[in-house]
C-alpha cells in the first residue's frame, strides 16, 4: 500500500511502471489539492497502532519530518540514495528526497512586468491583485515555516498582518492561485513550479520568478519517500524506494508536465530546457531539514489566525 501525496496525474503512471517492471501490485491512496482530503500524514499518525501504509511518497518534507520525529518511519538506506545530495536525505535513512519543486511568483505578463523590481514595487502598494494559498497546508505552510524560522514569529505575524491589510487574496490552494493569475483575475501570486507549468502548457500569459529568502536563497521542496514502521511488505517497499530514487524516475518526473527538478545526478541531455533553468535555482535552495520546530510553532499561530 502506497500513500502518495504527489498528484495522481503524474505519479500513477510511475507506480504502474513499477508494477510492470517488478510484478509487485501497488495499491495507491492519493492526497490531493482538495481541502476535503484528510491529509496522508494525519492518516499515518491515526493508523499508527495498525499501519495500513507501507511506503509514503510525500510531495513535501515537513510532514515527513513530523512522522520521523514521532518514530513512525523505518530507516532504509537505498543504494540509489547515494545519488542524492546529503541536504535532501535523512542522516539515518528515515526518508530520502527526490524530484523537487520550487516556490515561485507566478506573474500575469499582460498585467505587469516579470522582474524582481516590478514585484518588489507591487508588494509596497495595494495587494488586492495578489493571491496566495491558505498557509495552513502544503508548500505555503513550508514557506511560512521557513519565514518563521528566519524572521522570528513576531516579525512574521507583523508581516502577514501588513500584507492582509494591503488586501492580498488568500485562497484554497496553489492551483487556485495559478488559475486566478493565468486568467488575469490577479496580477501575481505565490505558487509551485508544477502548477506554473500547467498554465504555461495552456498557453496562458504567465512568467515566473523564484521566491527568495532574506538571504537570497530559493525554496526548493523535494518529494520524499519513506517506509512506514510496522509494514509487513518490507522487501517490496525497499524495491519501490530503490525504483523511485533511480535516475530513470527523476528524469521521468522532470519530463512530465510537472517538470520536477532532479536532485541527483542525471543525464543532462535528457532534461527539458525549463528544468535546466530550474536546476540552477534548486541548487540555491535553503536546507529544510531543521524546520520541524518552526513549523509546529508557526502552525499553532496559523491555526489561531485562520481557525479561531
Amino acid at each position: 500500500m502506497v500513500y502518495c501525496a504527489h498528484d495522481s496525474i503524474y505519479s500513477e503512471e510511475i507506480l504502474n511502471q513499477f508494477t510492470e517492471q517488478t510484478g509487485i501490485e501497488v495499491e495507491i491512496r492519493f492526497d490531493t489539492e482538495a481541502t476535503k482530503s484528510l491529509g496522508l500524514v494525519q492518516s499515518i499518525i491515526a493508523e499508527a497502532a495498525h499501519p495500513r501504509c507501507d511506503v509514503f511518497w510525500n510531495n513535501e518534507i515537513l510532514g515527513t519530518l513530523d512522522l520521523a520525529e514521532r518514530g513512525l518511519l523505518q530507516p532504509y538506506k537505498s543504494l540509489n540514495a547515494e545519488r542524492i545530495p546529503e541536504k535532501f536525505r535523512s542522516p539515518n535513512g528515515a526518508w530520502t528526497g527526490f524530484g523537487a519543486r520550487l516556490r515561485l511568483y507566478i506573474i500575469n505578463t499582460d498585467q505587469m512586468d516579470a522582474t524582481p523590481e516590478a514585484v518588489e514595487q507591487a508588494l509596497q502598494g495595494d495587494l488586492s491583485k495578489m493571491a496566495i494559498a491558505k498557509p495552513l497546508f502544503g508548500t505555503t505552510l513550508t514557506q511560512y515555516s521557513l519565514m518563521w524560522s528566519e524572521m522570528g514569529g513576531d516579525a512574521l505575524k507583523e508581516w502577514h498582518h501588513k500584507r492582509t491589510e494591503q488586501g492580498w487574496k488568500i485562497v484554497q490552494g496553489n492551483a487556485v492561485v495559478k488559475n486566478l493569475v493565468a486568467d488575469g483575475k490577479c496580477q501575481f501570486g505565490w505558487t509551485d513550479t508544477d502548477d506554473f507549468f500547467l498554465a504555461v502548457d495552456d498557453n496562458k500569459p504567465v512568467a515566473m520568478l523564484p521566491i527568495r529568502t532574506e538571504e537570497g536563497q530559493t525554496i526548493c521542496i523535494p518529494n520524499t519517500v519513506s517506509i512506514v514502521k510496522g509494514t509487513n511488505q518490507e522487501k517490496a517497499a525497499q524495491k519501490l524506494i530503490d525504483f523511485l530514487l533511480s535516475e530513470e524516475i527523476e528524469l521521468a518526473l522532470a519530463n512530465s508536465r510537472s517538470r520536477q527538478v532532479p536532485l541527483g545526478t542525471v543525464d543532462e541531455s535528457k532534461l527539458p530546457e525549463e528544468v535546466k533553468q530550474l536546476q540552477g535555482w534548486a541548487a540555491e535552495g535553503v536546507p529544510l531539514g531543521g524546520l520541524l520546530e518552526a513549523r509546529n510553532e508557526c502552525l499553532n499561530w496559523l491555526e489561531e489566525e485562520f481557525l479561531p
Partner: protein
Amino acid sequence: MSFTEIVEFSLFRACLISLLSMLVAQSLQPALKTERLWQTRLIWGALLAPFFCPDLLVGYAYYNFSLSLVHHPVWNEWFYGLLVTLKTIPLATILLYFSPPSPLSAEAFYCRELLNRSQSARFSKLSWWCGPRWLWWVRGPGLRLLPAGGLVFLIAFQEFEICTLMNTTAWTLNLFDRRAIGWESTRVYQLGLRPLGVELLVLLIILFAYLKLTKQTNKTDRPIVKPLSSAREGLTWAYLAFAFVVILLIPVGLVFRGSIAGWTVFLTNSSLLRETGYACGFAAISGVLAHGTAVYWVGRGQLVWWSRILLFLVCLPGLCGSFLMSLTVLELFQKTSLYHLYDTPLPLITGLYLFVLPRAVLIQFIRRDATQRESTFLAKTLRNSPVIAHRREGWQLCWEQNLWPQFWCLIPVCFWTYFDMTTPSILASPATTPAPYRLYNLMHYGQGTGLSAMLSATIAAPCLFITLLIVFLKTIQWIHLRRLMTHRNSNSL
C-alpha cells in the same frame, strides 16, 4: 471569523434558504396538478431535474465563475446561496406536496373568522381562548410546513460539496480544515457539538410536528388548491425555466463542450472504468440495503411508539450530516477491534447506508401516503385466487402498483449514494476509490477538457445502467403480459 460566528452565519443562511424555498414551494403547489396530463408531466420533470442534478456537476460548472468573484466575496456568498436555494426548492415542493394536510381545515378557519366578527359578548369572552390569528396559523397551516421546512433547512445547513468548490463560508468546511491540519477526533467532535445541537433541535421540531400532524389530521382531507391565475402561471414557468437553465442546462452544456475536446483522455485513463464500476457497486449495495430497511420499517403499517423511536435513532446518524457520521465510522474501524475490516469496502458501505437511510425512509413514507390501498388489496386478493388467470392478473397488478413504483423509489436512493462525496472522502479504501470522488478531488485544480470528459462518462454511466435495467424489466413485463394474453386466448378458445 470564529467557529461560533461561522455556525451562526451558516444558520442564518440556511434559515434564509429554507424560508425562501418554502415560499416558492408553496406558490408552486397549484402548478403540480393541472388538468392536462402533458403539462403536469412537464412541470414535474422541470421541477425534479435540478433536484437530481449532482452537486458535483453544479460545483464544477460554476468553479470558474466563482473564481471570477474573488474580488467580490459577498457576491460569491450570494451566488452560492442562490444555487443551494435552487437545489432545495424542488425538495421543498415535493415534501410539501406529500405532507399530511393541516390539522385545521379551511372551514375551521372560516368559522374562526365568523367568531371574531361576531360582536356578541359570549364570543368576545371566548376570543382570549381563540388566541391571535398567527397562533392559529402555527397550529394549522404552519404546522404542515414545519417538517418540510425543517428537512430543507438540514440540507442547506449541512451542504458541503458545492461550498468547498466555491470556497464559501461554511461550518462544515471549517471543521474539515481543522481535521486536515491534524486535530484529533475528540476535539473535532467537541466543536461539532454546536452545529450538531442545532441539527438535533430542528430534528426534534420536525419529529414533533410530523407526529402531531399524522395524529390530528384526516389523510383524506387534501389542502384546497386554488387554480393558477395566468400571471402566476407565467411566474411558475419563468421560475422552472430559470432553475432548469442555471442548475442543469448550463452545467451540462459546459461539461459536454469540454467532453468533445477532451475525449482522448479515455485512451490514457484505464482506471476510470474500474472506478465507475466501484461507484455503481457501492451505490447499488448501500442503496438496496437502505431501501430494503425503509420498506421493511414503513411497510409494517402504523408504527408503535417504540418502533418510531427506534427508526428515528437508526436514521439519526445520517440526519446529523455525513461528515460527523463518517468520522465516527472511521474511528470505529480504525481504532477498535474492527480494524481488520478497515481496508475493506465495509466502512464505506456502512457510511453510505447510514447517509442515505433517512432519505429512503422519507421516500417510503411519501409512497405509503400516496398509495391507493384498494388496488393493493385487490392485487393481494387476486394473487391468492385459485384461478390461474386471476393469480397472474394479481401479479400484474402487484407489479404495476407495488414493484414498479418501488423500483422508482430505489433509483433516487442509489443516485444519492453514487454522488455522495463526503462519505467516500473519509471512508473509501484506496483499492476501491469510487470515480465521482476521484474526479471531485481533481476538480480542485480547475476546469479542464479531460476532466469534463471523465465527468460526462461518470454521470452517463449510472444513467445508462438504469436505462438498461428499465429496458430489461420492461422486457420481462412484456413477456409476462404476452404469456398472460396467450393463456387467456387459449382459455377462451
